[in-house]
């Protein structure tokens, strides 16, 4: 470690904003966007359940608004010149294009700013943090549990590769069998299936994800989401990246603790990780001026 890292000389502490001014942040903007998307999908799902598709009124299913369907139908859409696997519509293909366009421009920011499943996981984690703050016995119990499970941390890195396997299975399975092999396992489908009292393996996966979110932030995104795997790879071409200025950084690791994807931000110089969801919570939480900033430069090579 260099002396510059231990004894910052040029950075100033960011001024703390109070009252309503504290609410005016990119985090609020992100949360409102996530909430808006979630409420829109919830409205679509409830309306479809109540009205259905029979008769004169045709209401769209929540499935029509999921880019995962586009990903699963990608192979068939390309080789058949526009046909899709069952339950996938043109809207799914457009949503996939929009999601990949966001990845190309701004890395995995679809996951951090728009994806409602990511939002739900963040809300569960926030609830867990809130309860732990208010109830010391719960905090101690969670801390003890985390201490006991600390040795499992070695699995974190290899488990992150699992989502690429899921991606291959999802796209390859639909290409080979001609239907969405992921549909009954998808926790997002498991959630909205509950409206129709439909219980699938996806419902079980959803429950596992929600319970895991009490202890680990965004577990689905970290380890299993095939869409996040795809956008992470495309996002490697994005010109945006995070830059940690070693001379201004105090190595307090607040940024790493703020990262919902558990990335070691305070140890890196540039953050271009495929798992970064572009939430910028690390930038918002960093207490030092100029220590951690969002930059734009040439894709791949920018430092």
């Amino acid at each position: 470690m260099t002396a510059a890292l231990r004894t910052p000389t040029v950075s100033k502490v960011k001024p703390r904003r109070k009252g309503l001014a504290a609410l005016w942040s990119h985090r609020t903007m992100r949360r409102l966007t996530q909430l808006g998307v979630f409420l829109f999908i919830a409205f679509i799902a409830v309306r479809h359940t109540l009205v259905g598709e029979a008769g004169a009124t045709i209401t769209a299913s929540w499935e029509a608004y999921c880019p995962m369907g586009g990903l699963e139908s990608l192979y068939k859409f390309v080789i058949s010149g526009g046909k899709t696997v069952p339950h996938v519509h043109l809207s799914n293909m457009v949503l996939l294009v929009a999601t990949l366009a966001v990845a190309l421009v701004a890395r995995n920011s679809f996951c951090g700013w728009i994806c409602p499943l990511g939002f739900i996981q963040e809300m569960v984690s926030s609830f867990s943090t809130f309860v732990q703050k208010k109830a010391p016995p719960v905090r101690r119990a969670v801390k003890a549990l985390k201490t006991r499970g600390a040795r499992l941390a070695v699995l974190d890195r290899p488990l992150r590769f699992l989502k690429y396997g899921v991606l291959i299975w999802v796209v390859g399975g639909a290409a080979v069998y001609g239907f969405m092999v992921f549909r009954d396992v998808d926790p997002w489908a498991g959630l909205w299936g509950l409206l129709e009292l439909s219980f699938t393996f996806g419902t079980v996966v959803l429950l596992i994800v929600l319970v895991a979110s009490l202890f680990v932030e965004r577990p689905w995104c970290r380890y299993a989401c095939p869409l996040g795997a795809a956008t992470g790879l495309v996002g490697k071409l994005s010109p945006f990246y995070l830059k940690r200025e070693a001379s201004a950084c105090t190595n307090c690791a607040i940024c790493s603790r703020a990262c919902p994807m558990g990335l070691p931000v305070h140890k890196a110089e540039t953050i271009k990780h495929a798992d970064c969801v572009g939430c910028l919570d690390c930038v918002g939480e960093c207490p030092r001026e100029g220590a951690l900033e969002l930059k734009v430069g040439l894709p791949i090579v920018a430092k």
Partner: protein
Amino acid sequence: MKVNPFVFGIIVLAVFFGVLGGAKAAGVWSVSGKLDAAGEKVQPTGASVDEIKGWMTLADVSKAYGAPVAEILAAFELPEDTPATTQLKEMESETFSVKALREWLAERPKE
């Protein structure tokens, strides 16, 4: 070059909703197999059995392919009093499926 997080958020949303808006404006948008890109209700045309979907009714298919409802019901050993307004997916049984109906219609001599 340093970028403000607010500007980043606006770029993310502009790209995402820009693509969606562009697709909608270009007519490349459909949220149901029952609707075409123009938002019109899809009807079977009789051109290809591949177009037959589970949400179509017995009457829709009968009209498009010139196969009387009674003949379809008899061919698949379905109750004679099955309403013509019944959706195909609601008729799924051991003797009937959308796939079987497609195959039967494809092999059925045209009048």
